């Protein structure tokens, strides 16, 4: 190996070391035959900010009942498609059986933090028996 090659190798190793230090990613292990009966719902995914969409993507939607047996329970799994950490804000808007927005029931803006390539479920419970439908709204974060 000549000096130039050796220098390039050192530079590459340093860059790899530096990038490893800057980003933290997630590996996962789970049961090959999960016992939970999952029935994913179809998602209508509207994108108005492609840069936000390319960072955090909704990948799975489940709808069920809360432990009280009555309230609507919604789980939206999101994935960070990047290697670096990501942070986004979201809120959930609720609608009644007629599709009318339930004013005063919109959730407050929440923040979700994701490590590189991490998947995380966002779980929400209908705040009223009148809430029959929902919409997740994602807002990009100023930093991270």
């Amino acid at each position, binding site marked *: 190996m000549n000096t130039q090659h050796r220098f390039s190798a050192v530079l590459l190793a340093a860059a790899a070391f530096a990038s490893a230090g800057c980003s933290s990613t997630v590996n996962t292990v789970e049961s090959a035959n999960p016992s939970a009966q999952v029935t994913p719902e179809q998602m209508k995914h509207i994108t108005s900010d492609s840069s936000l969409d390319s960072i955090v993507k909704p990948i799975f939607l489940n709808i069920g009942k809360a432990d009280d047996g009555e*309230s609507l329970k919604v789980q939206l799994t999101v994935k960070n498609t990047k290697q670096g950490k990501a942070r986004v804000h979201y809120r959930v808007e609720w609608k009644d059986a007629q599709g009318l927005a339930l004013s005063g029931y919109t959730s*407050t803006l929440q923040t979700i933090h994701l490590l590189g390539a991490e998947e995380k479920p966002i779980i929400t*419970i209908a*705040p009223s028996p009148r809430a029959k439908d929902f919409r997740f709204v994602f807002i990009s*974060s100023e930093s991270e």
Partner: protein
Amino acid sequence: MKKSVALTALTAAAALLAGCSESTKYVDSQGPDTVVSIDKVDIQDFAAAADSLLTSLYDSPAFLNSPRKPAIIAVSGISNETSTQFDINMLLGKIKKSITRSGKAEISAVVGTTQDALTKEAKAAQEFESGKTSNNSHDFTLVGKILESKTKAGSTKQTTYIFQLSVIRVATGTEAWSDEKLITKQGSKSSVGW
């Protein structure tokens, strides 16, 4: 002559600076443009904590075997054990609003910290007239605590606020539900936007 040039330059600089200063504006109280304080609980922290804790409460079977539907909750109190002073109603108000609108429970105005003198008087008069005294004024008690943990690394400060809330079943004297929400803020000084 030199003095007047300097004075003109100073006046122009002052005018420019005045033009650059940010004017006061309205922002969404729960939006990402609000101020984030490093050493105090902000309005959006109360909202986020209440939202998260109540989602957990509604997901639990706490009110499932309530003797009444909707269940009646008496607020025992939420204590502020942080180093800053604030009105606990900023959190309690959000909790009360959400619980009463959920249809799962109602908040007692006869007992607890949310009692109202007129309602209490009317209830007592009602009981006196009917000759029946009710011993079961409420089914559950709501109790909570806000704690803080502060740490520092160099010039970076970190404050964690811990919001704890429990619902106690009066009939058994046991906790029917309990949860906590942690809100951690990190930085060197307060800033606008999150």
